[in-house]
C-alpha cells in the first residue's frame, strides 16, 4: 500500500559503527591530524573556500565521523596553494595531509 510517506534515515553520527579506516591510516603517517582545534583559520584563508564549501577542518571531522566520500568530494575544490598550512596555529602540514587523503 502507498501511504504517501516513508521512514526517514537517521542523521545521527553513529559512533558505534562508523568506519575509521581512512582516518586511522592517515593518522599513522600524520599524527598531527589529531591536533586540530577547529579554530577555522584554514577555512578562513582558503582560496577555494571563498567560492565552495571547501574547509580542511571539516574534512578532518568528516573522516573522523566516517564520511569519507563527502570528504573526498570537498577535497576536489582544493587548489593546493598551501595558505592553510601557513596559518595553522598548531603547525599542521595541511597540504601534505590533503595529498595523502587523496592518494
Amino acid at each position, binding site marked *: 500500500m502507498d*501511504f*504517501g*510517506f516513508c*521512514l*526517514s534515515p*537517521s542523521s545521527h553520527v553513529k559512533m558505534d559503527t562508523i568506519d575509521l579506516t581512512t582516518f586511522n591510516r592517515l593518522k599513522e603517517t600524520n599524527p598531527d591530524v589529531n591536533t586540530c582545534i577547529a579554530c577555522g583559520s584554514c577555512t578562513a584563508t582558503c582560496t577555494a573556500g571563498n567560492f565552495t564549501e571547501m574547509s580542511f577542518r571539516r574534512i578532518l571531522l568528516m573522516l573522523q565521523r566516517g564520511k569519507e566520500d563527502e570528504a573526498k568530494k570537498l577535497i576536489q575544490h582544493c587548489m593546493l596553494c598551501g595558505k592553510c598550512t601557513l596559518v595553522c596555529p598548531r603547525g599542521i602540514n595541511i597540504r601534505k595531509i590533503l595529498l595523502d587523503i587523496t592518494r
Partner: protein
Amino acid sequence: MIIEGKQKIWADYQKDIPDDHYFYVRSCIRQAFWPGSEVTFLDITRNKLGKDFYENPYHTTCGGIAYHSDTIPQETAMTIIARQFALMKESGYENYVCSCITSFGCYTETLETWHEYPELEAKIRQYLWDSCKKEFAKPKYLAHASDIIYKFRFEIAKQMKFPLVNAKTGKPLKVVEHIGCHYSKMFPSKGFGGAEYPHVLVGMIEAWGGEVVDYPERRQCCGFGFRQYFVQANRGYSESNTHKKFESMEPYEPDLIITNCPGCPYFLDRWQYVIAEQTGKTYGKNGYGIPALTYEEVAGLVMGYDPWDLGLQMHQVAIEPLLEKMGIPYDPKKKYQGLNGKDLGQPMCPSCIKSV
C-alpha cells in the same frame, strides 16, 4: 540499574493534589480514538472510588492542538483556556483535571506565563470579557487525569482481578511506560516523578504487579509532532520517531506499552501497522505487535472490565495475546459487535502484522 536512585527522585517530585471534587474536561483525541477510556475513567473515579468528577457540557476543546500546530495565536489559546476556567468557577469547582496531555501542557504553560507576566493575564481577562462576558478564576489545583489514577493506584490494586502478571508462569509482565512529552518536559515539577524519570505510569505498573522496562529511547517523543502528522507529506517524521522507539525497546521483549497521552497510543499503535506494511517487521512475538494502551484501559483490564467495553477492539495491534497472557476471559464474537449484539462486520486483515 540502581532503583534506589530513581526512588530518591520520585520522592522529590511528588505534587499535592486533592483526592476529590474535580472539574473534568475531555480530550479531543481521546474522545475520538479511545472513547472507552474516558468512559472507564469516569466509571472508576465516580462509581468504583466514589469521587465527584463533574463534567460541564459547555466546555470545548482547549485549542491546544491548534496552538501547537501554529494555527492560532497564543492569546487565542489562552482565552479559550480562560473560558474553561470560567466554566469551572461558574460550576463551583476549584480543582481542574484534564484528560489530554497537550491540554495539561497548555494549562501549565498558561498559568506559569501569567505568573511571570501578570499584564498578559490581565489582557486575557479583558479578551474573555469582550468575547464571552465571562470572568475566570485560576484553579487551585491542576491535575492530569493520569495523576488521579496514580494517586488511587493502590485503591485500584485492592479491587484488582487480573494483575499485570503472566497467569501461566506467574512472572510479572514487562511493561514499557510512555509519557506524553507535554506532561512534564516543560515544567518538570508539575509531573509526578519529574521529567527524566516520571513516576506517574511507573507507579501504576508497580502497584498492579508489572515489571517496568527502561530502554535507551524511553524519553523520546512518539513523533506526533502536530503539523508533522496532520500533513500527509510530513508523516515520515512521525513514523520514524515511533520506529526508533520500537527498535530500541525490541530486545527487552515488552508485553505491553502504557501511555498517559491520548495521541501516543494512537501513533505507537498505528505506526506499528505501517512499519509492518512497509518493511515487513513486527515487534511482538509470532508476527503480532506490542499493544499500546491508555492508562485507563490498563486500569480497566486489571479491574476486570470486559476488554470490548474498554474499546480494545479500536487498536490495530491485536490485544488477544495480552489477554491470554493475563488470563482475562473474552468473547471473540463480541469484539466486532455494536450495541445489542449488532453485527458491524469485520476489519480487513493487514498483509503483515497479525490482527487476531
